């Protein structure tokens, strides 16, 4: 440790306890990257606070010694938002993992930043509600990371991303203040929408210490249709037709190779009087593309939409359906297969280009011009004049020009 970080470690051990401070290099090395493993840096010091006050104490200590800091949850981000600084402190929020409240009457959950995304969904599920933003890593990613990156997932096409669900925040600003932002459990509050700006700011405006998110009522019915096409182009045409027809699927994905999904029941044709589609004869390795359509809502609407989707997928040589409670396990298997296919790079889903994961780690995202960048910097300066919070992410360090195209 440098003398500066050593003195910081002493101070934090004193105030947070020695279990909260990691100085050992081998242990620090385990935090050297997030899921963007092409970029690695061993953090100068790792701190694991257990409360908002612990975060505040850490940030204040950094501020006093002019040491930059980076926040990290589970480190599942693909954008390098949690890439540490060798001369800085990594503040890991995973010990702040309490669900403080599931308030069904107001359709809100109040959670600490280290709570796992899926844990919120599960807790809400006991009361017939769900938490909509579902990044692929939701089984392990933290809600604090979701807020930092404004995460979305396959269901964002209908439900939107994290920013649409965060109604209130408690934030430790880079100047060491704990500030409440937003409307809490209400829908709106006067003042600039700082929750909206904070969400997606990759930890450059501070660290969320408490998060209020909106929960949705679990839909009555869910149906998944998987339509097998000869070519990606055919699947794309069907996808466009589904949008053009005014349907609002909760997911619409094209995989350009068959998914490793379990054998399923034959598709039941929801429209009476029409010839049923050919029964499934095992998986279709011959398919050039599979269109996955998920529908959710009142059962009567889902039935109508499923029938419409079948009509719009006329070019498909087979459609499989996994509906209702009976199809839940199969749907989950499809999404699990999807996630692993995407993660392994075996598949190149059509939609992958649209995920738009910005790469904070390498070069900054390229904005049009200096005026746009400068305008963004105004926000940064209001929150973090000393540029101590995750410097270099989102915006280039002051003075550096915007250069080149985005790396993805």
């Amino acid at each position, binding site marked *: 440790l440098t003398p500066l970080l050593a003195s910081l470690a002493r101070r934090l051990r004193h105030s947070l306890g020695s279990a909260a401070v990691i100085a050992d290099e081998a242990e620090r090395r385990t935090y050297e990257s997030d899921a963007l493993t092409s970029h690695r840096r061993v953090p100068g010091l790792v701190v694991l606070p257990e409360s908002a006050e612990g975060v505040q104490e850490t940030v204040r200590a950094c501020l006093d010694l002019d040491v930059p800091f980076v926040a990290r949850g589970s480190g599942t981000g693909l954008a390098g938002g949690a890439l540490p600084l060798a001369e800085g402190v990594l503040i890991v929020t995973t010990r702040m993992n309490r669900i403080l409240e599931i308030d069904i*009457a*107001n359709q809100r959950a109040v959670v600490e930043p280290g709570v796992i995304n899926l844990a919120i969904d599960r807790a809400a599920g006991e009361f017939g509600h769900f938490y909509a933003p579902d990044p692929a890593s939701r089984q392990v990613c933290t809600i604090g990371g979701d807020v930092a990156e*404004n995460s*979305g*997932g396959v269901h964002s*096409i209908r439900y*939107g*991303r994290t*920013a*649409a669900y965060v109604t209130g925040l408690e934030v430790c600003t880079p100047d060491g203040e704990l500030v*409440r*932002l937003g*409307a*809490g*459990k*209400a*829908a*709106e*509050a*006067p*003042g*600039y*929408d*700082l929750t*909206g*700006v904070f*969400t*997606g*700011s990759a930890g450059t405006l501070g660290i969320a210490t408490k998060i209020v998110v909106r929960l949705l*009522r679990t*839909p*009555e019915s869910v149906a998944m249709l998987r339509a097998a096409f000869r070519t990606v182009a055919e699947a*794309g045409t069907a*996808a*466009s037709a589904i*949008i053009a027809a*005014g349907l*609002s699927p909760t997911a*619409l994905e094209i995989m350009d190779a068959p998914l490793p999904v379990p054998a399923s029941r034959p598709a039941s044709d929801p429209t009476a009087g029409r010839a049923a589609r050919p029964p499934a004869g095992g998986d279709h390795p011959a398919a050039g593309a599979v269109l996955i359509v998920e529908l959710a809502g*009142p059962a*009567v*609407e889902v039935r*109508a*939409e499923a029938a419409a989707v079948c009509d719009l997928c006329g070019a498909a040589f087979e459609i499989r359906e996994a509906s209702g409670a009976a199809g839940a396990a199969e749907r989950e298997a499809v999404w699990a297969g999807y996630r692993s296919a995407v993660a392994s790079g075996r598949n190149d889903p059509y*939609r992958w*280009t*649209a995920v738009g994961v*910005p790469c904070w780690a390498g070069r900054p*995202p390229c*904005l049009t011009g200096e*005026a*746009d960048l400068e*305008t*963004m910097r*105004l*926000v940064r300066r*209001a929150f973090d004049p000393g540029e101590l919070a995750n410097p270099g992410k*989102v915006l280039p360090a002051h003075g550096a020009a915007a250069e080149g*195209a*985005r790396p993805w």
Partner: protein
Amino acid sequence: VVSAPDLAVGGPARDAGPADTVGGVQPRFVAAPRDAESLAQVLARCAEEGLSAVARGDGTKLDWGHPPSTVDVVVDTGRLAGVLGHSAPDLVVTVGAGTPVRAVQALLARSGQRLALDPPSVEATVGGMLATAEAGPLRHTFGAPRDLLLGVEFVRADGTFARAGARLAAGGALGALGDGSGAVGTGRGDGYDLGGGYDLGRLLCGSYGTLGVLASATFRLHPAPVRRAWVVRAVHNPAEVAGLVSDLLDSVLAPTAIEVDLPSLPVLPRQRDGGPIPGGQLAVLFEGSVEGVPARCQVAEVLLRGGVSTVDEAPVWWGRYPFSAADVALRLSAPVAGLATALYALRDAAGVPFRVRGSAGVGVVHAVLPATVPEERLAAALAAVRSALAVRGGNCVVLCAPSPLREALDLWGPTPGVALLRRIKEQFDPRRLLAPGRFVGGI
């Protein structure tokens, strides 16, 4: 010495008249820039001369908030109008800030699409809607304007033209600002979020023109519903409404919107036939398929039990403000289950009947008090409802009030994080040239 022609850069400018006042403050000039570039020139000229400026769309909400401490120039956005791009397959539209929301909807309807925003001020422009974060019944399902905003172009107080997020090029291609490559070709998924950096569009929403003047906005669109119907039920008090809203939110009926109207009608003698006393209404909008909507309405009728009817047209009060400029208009925002408590607190402290209307399903309603209520009593009522809301989380804003009440009341109420808000303002408009004093905390 500045004169109107100095502001006629790329668009006309004139001396202001009595009809141009902002919150009772008389401006000196009105400038109507022709496009974003000329808007930037006008604001740059204002900055050079140290002139304060207030943007005006249709003027429907110009008197909201505190009167600005000074207004030299009204920037009329009427010429920044028009649909700059619409990509139906991408479900995206880019419009000029001065475009009436109604005009946007009319254009989109031809493609079977809509901007799922229904600001209650009928003539609202896109810029005015965004500046005041104005949302109507559809917010229940689709959220506030900020939730559908994909990108903005705006001009800062010093005349700097700035952009954030996505926008459509003239040809309809969606592109991130920056590389122009526009990764989205399908209009699907969450690929809408294209630009890098902070979501400045959200920052401008509800900023009352104190950070910049909007030139254009890019929105996510939704398909227009095939079928709509309203289930309307008679209601008489906030507690009854709360119970019904709770039942609806707990159901799987997925209403698009839940609105309430509780007029402060005089108590009439009970009608001879024993029918219900005319009073308030709860109206629930269902949208969906031709077969689905009637089926869901039927279930809703049973759920709401008694005095219920299903209609194909919205009630006349649906999505309209219950107040006029002569009234004192409050907006209450509460956790949805705490709304009734806040309304009772207001009733007890105000001591007069008042009308309540708004989105009971999301906990945002308007309350209208007559301007004849004494100032001390209004202040006490505000304090009472604010303290009731503070317990549960929520707030009460005075949207508009006639002078001199406007000057006397604390319109915005206590706002957490106000120091941070001031720092944002300080960065964006250090000389306080844009709508000075209109916003929260004297901003």
